[in-house]
């Protein structure tokens, strides 16, 4: 009995350790790529935008974030075509937001501080810094179909998801739950 328990514990520890290494490697690789795009001042603006777009498509849980910003009832109320249109518009909006946020500054490095897990979501604590200052940056990441996807970014205690949820909820309230109006508002940006 004792041997079985020890074996199970050993397997569990090994599994957790392997997951830790896997997500650490993913984070180091993707944050390095992000910094390269961010600090790449040589290319034309539109080229950099395309790189951000590819980064967002690869690394963000777009459907989860886009749907998470809506109310379940609104998702049920709208047809697949409208939801797909919303997803695509949101993807462009998210890319634009990340582009605006990152492309106005340069940064030296992203330092991984620690990784916590809550309800199956990894909470990665990091610092993004240049020569003069450092900014706290948390990433909420989930493993979806064997790849890691970002669910939220929290910069200096401001969550992208929570902030956008407040904004989108207001637009939907004002428009009596019209997803079309939300899409139009997002297209304006």
């Amino acid at each position, binding site marked *: 009995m004792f041997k079985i328990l020890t074996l199970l514990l050993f397997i569990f520890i090994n599994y957790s350790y392997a997951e830790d290494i896997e997500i650490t490697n993913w984070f180091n690789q993707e944050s390095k790529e992000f910094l390269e795009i961010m600090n790449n001042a040589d290319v034309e603006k539109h080229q950099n935008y395309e790189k951000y777009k590819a980064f967002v498509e690869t690394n963000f*849980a*777009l*459907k*989860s*974030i886009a*749907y*998470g*910003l809506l*109310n379940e*009832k*609104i998702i049920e109320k709208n047809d697949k075509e409208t939801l797909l249109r919303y997803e695509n518009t949101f993807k462009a909006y998210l890319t*634009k*937001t990340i582009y*605006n*946020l990152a492309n*106005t*500054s340069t940064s030296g490095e992203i330092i991984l501080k620690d990784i*916590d897990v*809550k*309800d199956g*979501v990894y*909470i990665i*604590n990091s610092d993004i810094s240049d020569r*003069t200052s450092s900014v706290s940056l*948390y990433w*909420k990441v*989930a493993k*979806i*179909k064997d790849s890691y*996807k970002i*669910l*939220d970014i*929290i910069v*200096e*205690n*401001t*969550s992208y*998801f*929570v*902030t956008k*949820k*407040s*904004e*989108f*909820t*207001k*637009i*939907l*309230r*004002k428009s*009596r*739950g019209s997803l079309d109006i939300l899409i139009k*508002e*997002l297209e*304006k*940006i």
Partner: protein
Amino acid sequence: MKNLFKVLLLQILLFVPYVSFANSDEIPIESSVSYDEIYDPLEPINRAILDFNFFIDDIAIRPVIKTYKFIAPDPVEKGVSNFFSNLKEPIRVISFVFQGEFMKSVNSVGRFSINTITSLGTFDLASRIGMAENETDIGLTLAKSGVSSGPYIVVPIIGPSNFRDLSGNVVEFLVDPISNSVPNRSYVSIGSGLNSRAELDEEVDQIREVSTDKYEMIKSIYYQNRNSQIEEDFVQNLPTPKIYIE
């Protein structure tokens, strides 16, 4: 009689009935995110004040800040920022005492003494020798004592606040030993305000560029920042989207 009037006025303000002036065309949409439900009965007035603040910012404050940021080298900006932050240490000392955080209070005394003596507060030597800055204020002290935030308020020129934090600011204005000993304290207040605006310049530009609703964005950011100073495990407790298979 005057005091009785003040007490009554305070009570009326504290217990503003939950009457929402929000647009009646809006439909309630359930949400799992509590940040959507911030108590905001004064929204139409707040929105008007925010528009006014942006107008003033556009015509007067923003050009001054942009010029200042263009002219002043980074070390100068940092020095000015340190100077105003150092002026807040006495308030932090008082706040930490009321929060029962005596070590942090002593740390603030030490920081103020070291930084004032060595550089009039323009260089944060204390941090370099291991005495890190701990942010707090009277509003946070009230929050930690269990006082609820009350309605969200946008203050003309100053910006986002709530009843609790605004009350904290009033108390700070009355008890701040530094500002009270300066001959013309309005210069200090204006300087401090402009410095805070300069520190947030990039964020304000972001709000202008990518927000679908500036008012909601600023309100959400304000509450998240304040809550991060009040709650332990703030990040862990933030709502996370439900996972959909991509």
